[in-house]
């Protein structure tokens, strides 16, 4: 089992150039969020697999685009690892195939095909997921997520093939239904269909078909057996002529429909004064225009008397205005004359057209009655070509009484009758109709027969293909379900064992992972809790418990599948587990995996401290490197420091007179401590979306909870809380660029440090050095060493 001796990272993610000299040791990296801790975990993954899994599968993000440092050329990106085993090394450069020495091949193959990294995101996704996506999260943890993609693709292809089959069946059924309507037979064998179509032809008194291939010849025989094409063309012409004659008939109403014209003319001529006013109005309008346009006219153009222009123009306008109604009447008559002329001319055009066509297809028709009517119309048109005042029309009664009009329309009716008689000679006989039905029957039957002959073989091959691809899909789904369940079953014992290490005597047992057979890619996690059997763990577990369940699944997988592969990486995964359980996390990690080379990152200062304390207490400190990232810049990457406990750093800063740095560190210490204490005492803090809590957010809820649960102890320690509030102002002054900060003395900063230290000591056991935890069921607050240290009974 070869561990990593040195990890060298160049221009990768947030790192410019760093070398971690480990000599086979495990490593714990402490750093704030965004300082590049995870870049080292990503680097190990990239070295083995050529990708960074959390950069894959998300639109617009990829290893290719986002793994190299953004200020560097991709070709400058590389990850090199020296291994303890025989000092063997290998390096992966960007986009190049990695060359692995013979002695590392087995390790490399294992590293490239197994899961050995657990990230915080995996746990969060796993905890919050519904059953279907919970499978996806577990699949990602155990490395079978690719199978899901294959299953999805197979399912889509199966569905699409199935749809094609269904569509083809629908078309075939439609064609069969058509055949059923045509010949009462949906069977598509040539012989049966021929029998059926011949039966129908017999009903139509037609000769039977010898074969389908003789159908076109039969159609031609039927066509030539009836009327000639010239007869059919003549029938169409006659029908057209009938239509035009019917238009001519409408001419009988010509005068009635234009009665309005005669009414208007009647109104005008009913009074000679009106007729005179029309003429007079035109004279006045012309005079007004003439005098208005030509300034040099000084005399009246009619009487030649001198005029006063302006006065005359005004008088003219007034008189024209008085004559306006009669002028409008005159205009209406002009418009109505235009309408009459249009209608009349159309009738004459229709008549001429009828004459022309009749001459071509019916000889010697006498059109003289219609010519007489045409003369009447043209006479009226001629009379309308004068001004309305001069218009002299015969009365409508007189016109309608003219004998030429009924003669014309009697003649039109006779003409229509004559044409219809001629056309009737050309209409199809009963025999013709049957022949046409036979042609239609043969044509449509042939069409359907042809379509079915083409579609049926296609449908058969599609059906066979669908059957095969469905079998492949079903086999894949079943194999996956059975095998994944088998893996779950193999992991189950270890998951239970590990979960018991983390949560002994807490009433949890019987953790079970099950593939839900009813749903695609769905996994359910069930567990027993006291008397509740096989329930969803989310029903009664805290986030921390769910965190640890996800961790147990991952570690069980590692135990089962990563035999011989030493590296296990936990990227910021233990932050929501409370202090008491974190000790047990250490028991699990280092007790069950004593030979692993751990890569642990965390932003959680308190967890880091506890981890260190555990390693020292269990004699494991020498096997771990402790690194702390102090800061990060884009240009330089993470800035490392050898880890020192924060109180040691604070003391150094105060000793060196660095009051700004000391106060900032004290404030960070206070924030980290308050967060831990809030979790341990179950104080209620309003949730913040960004998850970043200041001392102000945490302090008051913690103190309030403390006072509520153990008021007597609170009273006893009240001075400590008051002292922190009083000194807390220095922290604020020194860490928020306040201009008054410069006036604060180093002594005042020391006072702030003492206040925070005394505050922490309220909650930390002086014997076992662990934080007091609130146990709601037992109604106590106690430390890990129980009777000897902190033990307060709560007032619940």
């Amino acid at each position, binding site marked *: 089992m070869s561990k990593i001796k040195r990890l060298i990272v160049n221009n990768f993610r947030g790192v410019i150039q760093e070398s971690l000299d480990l000599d086979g040791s495990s490593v714990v990296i402490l750093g704030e969020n965004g300082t590049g801790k995870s870049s080292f975990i990503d680097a190990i993954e990239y070295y083995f697999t050529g990708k960074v899994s959390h950069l894959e599968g998300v639109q617009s993000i990829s290893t290719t685009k986002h793994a190299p440092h953004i200020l560097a050329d991709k070709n400058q990106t590389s990850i090199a690892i020296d291994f303890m085993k025989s000092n063997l090394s290998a390096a992966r450069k960007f986009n190049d195939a990695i060359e692995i020495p013979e002695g590392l091949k087995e390790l490399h193959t294992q590293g490239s095909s197994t899961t050995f990294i657990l990230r915080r995101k995996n746990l969060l996704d796993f905890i919050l997921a519904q059953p279907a996506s919970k499978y996806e999260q577990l699949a990602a943890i155990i490395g079978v997520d690719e199978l899901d993609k294959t299953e999805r693709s197979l399912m889509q*292809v199966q569905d699409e093939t199935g749809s094609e089959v269904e569509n083809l069946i629908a078309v075939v059924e439609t064609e069969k239904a058509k055949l059923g309507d045509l010949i009462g037979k949906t069977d598509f064998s040539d012989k049966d269909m021929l029998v059926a179509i011949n039966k129908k032809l017999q009903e139509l008194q037609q000769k039977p078909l010898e074969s389908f291939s003789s159908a076109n010849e039969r159609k031609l025989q039927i066509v030539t057996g009836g009327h000639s094409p010239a007869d059919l063309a003549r029938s169409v012409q006659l029908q057209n002529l009938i239509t035009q004659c019917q238009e001519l008939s409408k001419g009988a109403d010509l005068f009635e429909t234009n009665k309005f014209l005669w009414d208007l003319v009647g109104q005008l001529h009913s009074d000679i004064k009106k007729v005179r006013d029309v003429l007079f109005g035109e004279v006045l309008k012309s005079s007004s225009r003439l005098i208005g346009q030509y300034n040099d006219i000084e005399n009246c153009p009619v009487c030649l008397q001198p005029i006063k222009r302006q006065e005359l123009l005004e008088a003219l306008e007034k008189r024209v205005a008085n004559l306006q109604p009669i002028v409008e009447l005159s205009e209406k008559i002009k418009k109505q004359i235009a309408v009459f002329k249009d209608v009349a001319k159309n009738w004459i055009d229709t008549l001429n057209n009828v004459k022309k066509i009749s001459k071509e297809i019916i000889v010697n028709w006498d059109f003289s009655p219609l010519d007489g009517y045409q003369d009447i119309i043209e006479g009226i048109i001629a009379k309308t070509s004068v001004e309305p005042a001069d218009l002299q029309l015969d009365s409508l009664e007189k016109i309608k009484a003219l004998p030429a009009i009924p003669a014309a329309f009697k003649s039109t009716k006779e003409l229509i009758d004559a044409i219809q008689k001629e056309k009737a000679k050309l209409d199809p006989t009963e025999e013709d109709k049957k022949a046409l039905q036979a042609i239609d029957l043969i044509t449509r039957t042939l069409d359907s027969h042809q379509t079915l002959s083409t579609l049926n073989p296609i449908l058969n091959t599609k059906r066979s293909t669908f*059957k095969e691809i469905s079998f492949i899909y079903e086999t894949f789904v079943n194999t996956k379900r059975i095998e*994944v369940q088998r893996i779950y079953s193999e992991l189950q014992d270890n998951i239970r064992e590990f979960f018991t290490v983390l949560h002994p005597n807490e009433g949890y047992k019987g953790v079970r992972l099950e593939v839900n057979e009813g749903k695609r890619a769905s996994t359910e996690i069930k567990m027993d809790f006291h008397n509740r059997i096989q329930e969803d763990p989310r029903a009664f577990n805290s986030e921390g418990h769910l965190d640890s369940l996800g961790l147990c699944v991952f570690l069980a997988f590692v135990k089962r599948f990563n035999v011989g592969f030493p590296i296990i990486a936990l990227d910021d995964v233990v932050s929501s587990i409370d202090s008491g359980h974190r000790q047990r996390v250490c028991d699990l990690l280092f007790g069950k995996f004593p030979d692993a080379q751990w890569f642990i990152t965390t932003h959680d200062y308190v967890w880091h401290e506890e981890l260190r304390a555990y390693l020292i207490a269990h004699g494991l400190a020498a096997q771990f490197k402790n690194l702390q990232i102090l800061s990060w810049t884009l240009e330089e990457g993470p800035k490392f420091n050898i880890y020192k406990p924060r109180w040691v750093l604070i003391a150094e800063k105060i000793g060196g007179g660095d009051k700004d740095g000391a106060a900032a560190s004290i404030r960070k210490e206070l924030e980290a401590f308050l967060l831990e204490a809030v979790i341990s005492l179950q104080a209620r803090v309003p949730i913040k979306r960004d998850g970043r809590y200041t001392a102000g957010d945490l302090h008051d809820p913690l103190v309030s909870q403390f006072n509520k649960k153990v008021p007597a102890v609170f009273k006893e320690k009240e001075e400590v809380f008051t002292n922190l509030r009083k000194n807390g102002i220095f922290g604020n002054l020194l860490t928020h660029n306040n201009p008054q900060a410069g006036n604060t003395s180093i002594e005042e900063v020391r006072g702030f440090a003492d206040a925070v230290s005394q505050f922490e000591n309220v909650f930390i056991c002086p014997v076992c050095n662990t934080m007091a935890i609130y146990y709601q069921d037992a109604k106590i607050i106690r430390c890990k060493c129980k009777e000897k240290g902190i033990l307060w009974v709560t007032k619940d």
Partner: protein
Amino acid sequence: MSSQVSELIYNKFFENLLGNKDIKPETIEAIKELYKSGKIINKNELIKLCQSIEAHYVKDQATNCQ
């Protein structure tokens, strides 16, 4: 590259496909090839597989008609 767990499951899948009369041996070979070349997750490649299955059936039909 598939994970070792995936590989185990794929191999079991190929085993389960064998010996079934509903699936042609050449189909099994084709799907194995897709897996080896990492294309088995690709829907378009699976559509091509379907087309080749269909082509085999068309060929069979033509042979049967002769």
